[in-house]
């Protein structure tokens, strides 16, 4: 009873695969940009103890880092409407990714900010820089540069984690896989190919982020 593999039956659905891939990348891009923005704000609040944000961000980081992404997603998608907040599957997926990445990047970027040499801050202060200027020009660029590899890894982890968004019917790549295997009854082949796509996406996203880091940050940090 040898099983005959049939991968071509999956490739017949390449449009669905492509659409899913684009959606997964879109989710990741929005999640990464907004999540990093929250992370920068949270990190400076915690590192410089800006009340009351430092306390709020400490609680937020602990809460998110100690609960599964899937539960956060369900809480947002199924829980918020019962409070009267109308939210569709894409809004829920994006919100969950932003909230999740925001917490992790707060922790990662905070480590970078705390590693700023004391002398750099003193030098900037002696030039009569304001706190905002000091942060924007002296502290942030080298801090981001130091932790950029960790941030790249975290974005890739969040992208791979986004596969559970299929569970709230957001039509991303895993949703496409579920759809295809329900049509062609080739579950193994379908998931095998889609896993391969995720693997390539992980490599591509990491490379793109490393490149972006060099273009956007490395120049400003030196």
């Amino acid at each position, binding site marked *: 009873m040898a099983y005959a593999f049939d991968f071509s039956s999956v490739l017949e659905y390449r449009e669905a695969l492509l659409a899913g891939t684009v959606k997964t990348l879109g989710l990741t891009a929005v999640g990464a940009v907004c999540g990093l923005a929250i992370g920068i704000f949270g990190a400076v609040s915690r590192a410089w103890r800006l009340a009351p944000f430092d306390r709020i961000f400490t609680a937020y980081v602990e809460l998110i*880092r*100690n609960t599964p992404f899937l*539960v956060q997603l369900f809480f947002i998608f199924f829980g918020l409407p*019962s409070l009267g907040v109308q939210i569709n599957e894409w809004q829920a997926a994006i919100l969950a990714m932003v909230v999740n990445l925001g917490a992790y990047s707060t922790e990662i970027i905070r480590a970078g900010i705390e590693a700023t040499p004391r002398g750099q801050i003193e030098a900037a202060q002696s030039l009569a820089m304001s706190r905002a200027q000091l942060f924007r020009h002296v502290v942030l660029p080298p801090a981001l540069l130091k932790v950029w590899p960790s941030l790249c890894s975290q974005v*890739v982890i969040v992208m*791979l984690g986004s*596969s559970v968004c299929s569970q709230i019917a957001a039509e991303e790549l895993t949703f496409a896989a579920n759809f295809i295997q329900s049509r062609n009854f080739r579950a*193994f082949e379908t998931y095998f190919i889609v896993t391969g796509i*995720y693997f390539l996406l992980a490599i591509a996203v990491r490379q793109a982020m490393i490149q972006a880091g060099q273009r956007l940050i490395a120049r400003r940090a030196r």
Partner: protein
Amino acid sequence: MSDISYWDIVRNLFDGLLWTLGLSLTAFVLGGCAGLLVLFARIAKHPLPRRLALGYIEVFQGTPLLMQLFIIFFGSSLLGLEVSPWLAAALGLTLFTSAYLGEIWRGCVESVPKGQWEASASLALTHFEQMRHVILPQALRIAIAPSVGFSVQVVKGTAVTSIIGFVELTKTGSMLANATYQPFMVFGLVALGYFALCYPLSAYSRYLERNIHGSRAH
């Protein structure tokens, strides 16, 4: 609205929590054993096991856990094996854990000073004896904090197994949310359950990290 009392919800969620805990422990213990094999392959003298281990790690770190579970679940039925969600979940998480722990531990082994290898080699210890008596005991000390930290990822990873039908905390929560129409409360409690499991581990990992660095300074 429904005849499921608050007490019923809490009791059922607690049962789910125990399954989550059981799966986490299974995956962590078995994954740790397999991780040791990955570690040995990763730092072997011969390049072939090194490359195989690197490929293994990259595949498991570069693909979604959900896809790994799907492939195990559907792949095993192709082999004619009837695999229960529990077995697929345990196997999937064990492999996932072994890849991560293997890589974490490699970092720990490599942070043991090179002189320790050279000194033990000069005593004519074999590679295995060097590892067993000289390197691993020192690496273990460094490895405890990140391993405990990673256990949080294992506990959170178990939530994904609800999708292949394993009834743990998240799956119990989904079923209760559907039955009671109170998703906000139910998923709030589910989150609280995970937090109760994960927060002590996170806090302990941080404590260990501080302590090891502290004791090294003396």
